[in-house]
């Protein structure tokens, strides 16, 4: 972990310096201390300053902690695998957000009723479209990516599980909203 700790330690110190000298002073409404009602009180910059100082101390400690001279290699491949997973998740979230309104847009193009998704968000099937497509994509995509192949069984499980979750969350709980219906 020798090399890695040096990278993390210096990264932390660098981030802390940016925070202490750029971010915190530029992006807080009041300074370290502030005078209100003839009384000195702690300002909004104080707590983040302490936090970034801790970050700097932590980074420095990591740099002086006794180094083991056995460098563990951190291979790139697992990162790429995880990046692909994150991409699948992100794609699933995008589908979740836009599938319903998108489909409505298409339906209107084909002469469907002219309305807004906002007003349909509590009606079947609109309220499930985004969640269903996004959920199936996430489960099916991640499982297939990890297994390295596409299987009909995986897709079937994904469909069944997503429908199960809809039944579990939306049907019994009146005030619970499935994504993306709370955004409207």
């Amino acid at each position: 972990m020798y090399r890695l700790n040096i990278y993390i330690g210096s990264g932390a110190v660098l981030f802390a310096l940016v925070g202490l000298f750029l971010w915190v002073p530029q992006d807080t409404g009041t300074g370290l201390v502030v005078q209100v009602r003839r009384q000195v009180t702690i300002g909004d910059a104080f707590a983040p300053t302490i936090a970034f100082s801790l970050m700097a101390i932590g980074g420095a400690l990591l740099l002086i902690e006794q180094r083991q001279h056995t460098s563990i290699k951190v291979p790139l491949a697992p990162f790429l695998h995880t990046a692909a997973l994150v991409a699948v998740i992100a794609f699933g979230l995008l589908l979740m957000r836009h599938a319903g309104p998108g489909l409505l847009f298409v339906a209107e193009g084909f002469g469907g009723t002219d309305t807004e998704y906002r007003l349909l968000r509590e009606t079947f099937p609109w309220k499930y479209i985004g969640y269903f497509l996004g959920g199936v994509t996430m489960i099916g995509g991640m499982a297939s990516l990890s297994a390295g192949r596409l299987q009909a069984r995986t897709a079937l499980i994904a469909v069944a599980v997503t429908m199960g979750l809809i039944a579990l969350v939306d049907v019994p709980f009146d005030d619970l909203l499935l994504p993306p219906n709370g955004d409207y």
Partner: protein
Amino acid sequence: MQPLEYILAGMQAVIFGPAAFELLGVPIPLTLVMVFAGVVTGILVGATPGLAGPMAMAISLPILISFFGYNVEALLPVLGFLIGIMKGATLGGAVPAILFNTPGTPDAYMTTLDGYPLTQRGQSRKALKVAHLSSVSGDTFSDIALFVCAPFVALMVERHLDFPEKTALLILSLSFIAAVIGGSPGKGLISVALGLIAVFIGGGEDFYPRLSLGTDALAGGFSIMTAILGVLIVGAVLKEYEDLWHRSNLSGARERIVDHGDQRLTRAEVLRIAPYIGQSSLVGTIIGALPGIGTTLAAALGYQLGRARYVRRRPEGAPAFGEGAIEGVAATEAANSSVSGSNLIPVLGLGIPGNAAAVFIILATDSIGGFTPGPSVFRFSESVVNTELVLVFGLFTAMLFANLVNWTFGGAFMRAATVMVRVPKRTLLPVVLLLTFTAVYAQEPSMESLWFTLGFGILGYLMRKVDMSPLPFVIAFVLGGSLENSARQAFSATGGDPYFLFSSWISIIFLAGSVVTVVLALRQKRTNSTRA
């Protein structure tokens, strides 16, 4: 009301509280039903490799709250369920450790050392029985310690701690957590700092939401759910997936070992393991009461002490520790289970969570009105009823009931939970992920919060990747607000004294303690690595 009346009122709040349904004309109390359901869920979750108790607590909390509402009546059923999970999961964690040599939770690793050899010898049911007995005994012992100690800790705090001392105590807890978790004080401090920075974004007293980079997205700050579920669950899911990918070349076929011989636990054997259970329970309880030191250390310490004792008293011809000694299973399971009760001493007495499970207890009480953990809970006021105190005794009653469920049905559920080991991780993990997103959205219905959750998940993955524990991050995120508040209050209340932290001996001792813990941890790290 007198103290005894408070205890009775607490029990009544559980037993004569709202009923879930009627069985043969007898109303069945909702809280007890929820505790039972929680224990069963906990055992199943604990027995599933890749899942852990805190995960189940995290996902169920928003859903429970949406169902039961935010009113004070919701508190006992919701906390009952969460505590049931907490207690069930420690019991369930032993199942895959003993049967398949794969610990369901990290603290069950030590259980594999003697549990799996027992299975190989055809004694798996006996091993499960030992685990059950030790786990539940340790848990019960720890609960009793909680009931006795929490009120005293709280009263001491209320009597002796003013704003400056409370600030110093929070600093001590955070540096303690940074120093002891994960074995690297440097990484611990970075983790704490990240948690603090994350919680300070968007907050503050001024009208301008600080550190928001002028964006509306950051102006409201990160909610506690996105940060914690992101780092704890999404981060774990991503990391687990990567580990699966590493292992994909290994064949997963497991040999099946059939039990043979007498599986009963004789009275003599129970007497043999009793001292190990007692010793480990004490160790686990003490460790649990300190914030930040987790069950894993308790299990390791309990196992080491048990082995030391066993070397002196090993009966003729009995297997050594690591070769299938029932004492080994007893020593670990009692130790890791006795953490959970005493863990709530700092939660109820100070409002400071010591581990991930305790974080969700705090979050539940934060979300539901009418109960704020901390010293004021334990005011035995006589003229007006302190409803919070009644709730505490209700909570204790629920914990005792959870133990009762564990004692009576726990063993059977453990055997039934064996099936969970066969659930394929590859499909289970994305389901957990989708469930997490759904739960976050239930609490905070905006897609933004899901993106934040994913972002924190990536952070949690990277932290795990570089061996940085995410727990200090989580606890710093939970305590950051109180820390800033109490510092502000201490500063204003002392009339702007910049040295308010040094205004009394108690706070000076707390501060000195926090420096000492970090320095000691650093020195230990240095000696360890020179030796290595």
